[in-house]
């Protein structure tokens, strides 16, 4: 039996075992009854984490983030069910339990508003609860930025510890870094499942902000339920909770560079039947024809600087998803199925390294000199379905099962003979096809399946155990459209099977002031690649299996209501990709002995804030972090450029993040800011980088900061209308492209300092039931010449208008 089959059997056995537990523990309380329902506010919005209690029986429960609850083991008779939520008036409901097995009770609570110098006391949301947990997480709320025109990449870049480098405007290539680590070292999720199983498979920064309720950034220490080999952390996009009978939101944005962005999200929930449905969609288009400086040659080949519009950089993406299900049944807290489709097409204007010239003596200041592309296009689509089943098999048990299937195709299209200049003119018809250098028309096909199963056992009010099993299977093949016949190397079939298993213990002590999370993970990987040999006409098979362990701990202690600390640690793993292990058969040889990258990740966070009843609401937070990374993978080549991936270098990233927010001293004004300094250095004692031991890791920002201010003028042209002025500023320190100790300092190519200002105003009308807003925003207000990557200029000043409605 192959290793993959063994894993599959193992996985299905595990699933079966979990379901068996579900079944067996579900038989515990046959003579009792269940009460379920939902806790809502007076507007129908879900109130998370409400406490429900039948005092006489000592039966209680805590509602979930959607306000849903389930009380089991309720005996025959009349009981008083009490519900409490901080910031809302307590409510009692008398209920006679007799012959029905399940009782549905929905509570609508009135807000308990205390007028105390205009400070309103409210309950904590689930985002805040997560933020204040022992997890090493920063929660980015999108409520305010949904009204603004920034995309998710720009929103993420405002987060401490996060660096988002982009090669252009909307839809461009992006490098997302978290405390210095980037690429495959960071994993992305959508409602807890891998982002590739969503309509947004084309990169996190292009996900519409209006489709997201919040973003959870896990720094270096990743909860087991994600089931991933995330060396440096994970990012989870969380969609809005379903809380109303009917609700939704829509937005439309128009602006510079021919940009149009639209989103629509609708939801319906039927209290009686438990049926719910959500439908969402988005459409993005931009020409990205912003102006950049280029160095163009005259007939003698001498360069002259010009400013031109990019002419082949358009981006189009659209997608939709539909989710149907039921909630709040005895047999299922939720059972839902989702289908989605996403599609994008991206014109490519230039290579990743388009050739920057900086010769002030010739009047050329950071201008691109290489040829542009005029016909290269990358496109992709992704379609799939997800299943979610959540159930409480017994009073102390919860099973949360997610599974999905995805089919995707990517195509690169580069077959033109035309040579373009920066004015968009064809200056030559080449004999050679392909603007990158060689003609390319490759279709890559992938099929993926995943499952995420988490079984929770609540040992007591303060202790719980969590078991997570997360298998992922992916199959990849391709077709080189330029190769005729059967011997197409792209037809090779690659199969990858990952199984990440985690066990976690959570406990809360000292009246919940202390929380501790301890976990252990096992990573198993099986790879199999089948390729057909052209010479001997038979199938060759490469395969490998790998097993690694990781572990971690997180703790939080609240010294007082105003001051808390967190300390987190994880020994994290990134398993090698299949191309890193098996090479490409041409310039990259296989290395069956290639090991995983590993890292010791440590965070220590301090948070200090004002009293809840203070007139001035403020908070400061700091996080000290350490990433000690070993066995980093690098392509080591010889003089003929042949080589293989090897574990040859190491690095350490240490740093500090500071953030603060204050509102209240001036009525309507909120000011916030953060700064990150990361000292990410090469610590290799052997290998190709040993000569540069102690140097900063090149091409990586190490000091960046954000500041924002918002001023709200209330009651403008109506009691419920207000006007918001906002301003954001981002600073990124300059950084070198190569090792800092190499080369004369005055000759070193560097990505220059960035100082970017964005400002705008929003007019907002309506109440919670129907809220509309119109935003006018100017991005890159000073028209600064900005680079994230060396030689790739980003957009200058741009104006956008956005209309948003929420109902």
């Amino acid at each position, binding site marked *: 039996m192959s290793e993959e089959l063994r894993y599959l059997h193992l996985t299905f056995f595990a699933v079966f075992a979990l379901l068996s537990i579900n079944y067996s523990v579900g038989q515990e309380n046959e003579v009792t009854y269940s009460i379920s329902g939902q806790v809502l506010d007076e507007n129908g919005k879900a109130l998370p984490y409400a406490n429900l209690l039948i005092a006489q029986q000592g039966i209680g429960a805590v509602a979930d983030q959607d306000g849903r609850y389930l009380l089991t083991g309720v005996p025959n008779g009349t009981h008083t069910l009490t519900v409490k939520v901080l910031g809302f008036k307590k409510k009692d409901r008398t209920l006679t339990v007799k012959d029905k097995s399940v009782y549905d009770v929905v509570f609508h609570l009135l807000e308990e508003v205390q007028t105390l110098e205009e400070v309103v006391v409210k309950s904590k949301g689930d985002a805040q609860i997560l933020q204040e947990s022992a997890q090493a997480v920063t929660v980015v709320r999108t409520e305010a930025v949904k009204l603004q025109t920034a995309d998710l990449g720009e929103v993420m870049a405002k987060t401490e510890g996060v660096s988002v480098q982009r090669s252009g405007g909307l839809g461009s290539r992006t490098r997302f870094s978290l405390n210095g680590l980037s690429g495959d070292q960071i994993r992305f999720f959508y409602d807890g499942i891998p982002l590739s199983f969503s309509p947004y498979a084309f990169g996190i920064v292009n996900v519409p902000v209006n489709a997201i309720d919040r973003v959870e950034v896990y720094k270096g220490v990743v909860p087991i339920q994600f089931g991933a080999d995330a060396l440096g952390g994970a990012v989870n996009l969380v969609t809005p909770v379903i809380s109303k009978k009917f609700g939704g939101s829509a937005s439309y944005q128009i602006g510079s560079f021919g940009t149009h962005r639209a989103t629509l999200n609708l939801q319906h929930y039927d209290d009686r039947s438990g049926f719910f449905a959500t439908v969402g969609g988005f459409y993005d288009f931009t020409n990205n024809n912003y102006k950049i400086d280029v*160095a*163009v*040659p005259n007939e*003698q080949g*001498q360069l002259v600087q010009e400013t031109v519009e990019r002419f082949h950089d358009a981006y189009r993406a659209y997608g939709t998803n539909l989710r149907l299900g039921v909630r709040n049944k005895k047999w299922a807290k939720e059972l839902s199925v989702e289908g989605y489709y996403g599609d994008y097409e991206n014109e490519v204007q230039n*290579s990743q*390294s*388009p*050739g920057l*010239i900086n010769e002030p*003596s010739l009047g050329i200041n950071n201008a691109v*000199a*290489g*040829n542009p592309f005029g016909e290269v296009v990358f496109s992709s689509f992704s379609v799939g379905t997800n299943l979610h089943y959540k159930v409480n098999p017994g009073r102390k048990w919860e099973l949360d099962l997610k599974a999905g299937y995805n089919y995707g195709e990517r195509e690169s299209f580069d077959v033109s003979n035309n*040579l373009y*200049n920066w004015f968009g003119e064809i*200056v*030559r018809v*080449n004999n050679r096809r392909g603007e990158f*250098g060689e003609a390319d028309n490759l279709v890559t096909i992938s099929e993926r399946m995943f499952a995420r199963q988490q079984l929770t056992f609540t040992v007591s009010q303060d202790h719980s155990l969590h078991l997570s099993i997360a298998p992922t299977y992916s199959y990849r093949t391709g077709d080189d459209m330029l*190769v005729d016949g059967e011997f197409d*190397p792209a037809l090779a079939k690659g199969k990858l099977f990952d199984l990440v298993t985690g066990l976690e213990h959570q406990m809360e002590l000292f009246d919940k002031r202390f929380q501790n999370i301890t976990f252990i993970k096992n990573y198993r990987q099986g790879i199999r690649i089948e390729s057909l*040999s*052209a*010479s001997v006409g038979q199938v060759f098979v490469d395969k490998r299996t790998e097993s690694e362990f990781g572990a971690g701990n997180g703790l939080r202690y609240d010294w007082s209501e105003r001051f808390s600390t967190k300390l987190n640690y994880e020994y994290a793993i990134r398993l090698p990709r299949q191309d890193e292990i098996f090479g490409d058969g*041409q*310039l990259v*040889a296989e290395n069956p002995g290639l090991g995983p990258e590993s890292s010791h990740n440590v965070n220590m966070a301090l948070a200090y804030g004002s009293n809840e009843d203070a007139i001035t609401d*403020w908070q*400061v937070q700091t996080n000290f972090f350490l990433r000690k990374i070993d066995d*980093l993978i*690098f392509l*080591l080549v*010889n*003089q*003929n450029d042949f080589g293989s991936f090897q574990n040859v270098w190491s690095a350490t990233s240490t740093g500090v993040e*500071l953030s*603060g927010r204050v509102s209240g001293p001036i009525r309507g004004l909120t000011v916030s800011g953060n700064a990150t*300094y990361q000292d990410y250095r090469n610590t290799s004692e*052997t*290998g190709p*980088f*040993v*000569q*540069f031991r102690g140097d900063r890791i*090149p*091409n990586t920002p190490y*000091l960046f900061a954000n500041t924002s201010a918002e001023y709200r003028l209330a009651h403008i042209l109506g009691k419920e209308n207000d006007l918001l002025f906002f301003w954001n500023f981002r600073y990124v*320190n300059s950084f070198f*492209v*190569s*090792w800092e*100790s*190499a*080369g*004369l*300092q005055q000759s070193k*190519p560097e990505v220059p300092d960035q100082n970017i200002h964005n400002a705008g105003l929003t007019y907002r009308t309506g109440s919670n039931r129907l809220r509309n807003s119109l935003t006018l925003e100017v991005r890159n207000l000073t028209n600064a010449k900005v680079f994230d990557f*060396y*030689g790739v200029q980003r957009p200058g000043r741009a104006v956008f208008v956005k209309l948003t409605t929420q109902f």
Partner: protein
Amino acid sequence: MKRMINLLSTAFVLGILLNGCSGDDNGNKPTGPEEPTEAKSGWMYGFRVPTPAGRVFYMSAHEEIPSTDDISSAVELGFNVRFFSYGENPYTWNSDAATITKWNVDKTNFELSTDGILSLASAGFSGAIGWPIFISETQAFYPNLREGLILEWNPSEMTITDIYDIDPYVSSNGNSDSELYAYAGNGKVFFPIHQSPPEVCCGYNAPEAGAVVGVFDINTKTIEYKKDKRLMAASGGFIVDESTGYNYVVPGRQNAIVEHYLDVDSDDLLPRNTLLRMDANGDFDPDFSIDLEASMPVEIFMGPWNGRVMDNKIIMDIIKQEDVVYPENFEDRWMAISGSETQSIVLDLDTKEALPFTALDKYSGLLYLTTVDGINYYTGFNPDGGSFALRQDGFDSYTEISTLPNASLRHLKKLW
């Protein structure tokens, strides 16, 4: 509130300090009171350094070949650069920007400064194309045979003189051939054409392919492709005999690959590792051939490219038959070269006999760099990515004269 302001102020000051501390000294050299004197000699030293983001190129100038690379004092050139030099000036080709930069070397302190940039972006030249050919201080050529272009430029003015449309070289196998190390002499420029085998199975039409050299006449601005159909393919370099004017045409490494995996369509071929000869006019000598396998179990001929004949002998690298492991899978065919150890041999042009050359036993995969005053210089590479420069003091006497612990030496040239 006051405490909060203090905290924020402290954070702000910390940020300023961290920012301020991050700026390093700018590397200005101390100036001495002595009157500067011009150095008697100057060498150009070009190398590349690996980084996690790609390979970055550096260049420095020295009075003598340095014993090791002083990377901190080199000029950083960025990614995707090639070096060459003519007269007293180094030149660099930036394949991303499609520009040639001319450099001046200060003869007193060896500082490098730019002396003009020439862009070929609109002329159809970009990427990793061949090396330029210098004829004089005011005349040089840049080939792009595949596109049917020869560009003439003036290195003194750094301007394009003209672009000549020539017959393009169109490969018989539709593959990406390239012209690498060209050689000028007798009013002609000789472009050895490195011809790759097909990417896909299974036939190979050797007579259509053949060993090909492009001969460009500087006066008539025309090119003629000379072909010797006795050999499947030539490599992208010559071995030059300056005493006789002969250029020895090196068999391509791919010949063994082709023969192993593909059905070769010809009964009239010479053995795959046969050395051919071309006269000063660029004509193949139909009566000359040396089969390296006749006296040695040569499987794959490896180099050197563009080497020089010494004492009517040629030193070259080969892979012996017993050392080659051909992967079964055709797609892995290049591993036969990359996974095998090379060995040096010496070929006596008088006796046409190849023998083991033990003086280079400790090295593998040497590349020719330059010849100065009749002395050849080579570079070799260490498994961990470092490299060294090797000077040929005598026919079988070699000295490592420079070590680069983590860099690859790509260019070494005496400028004056």
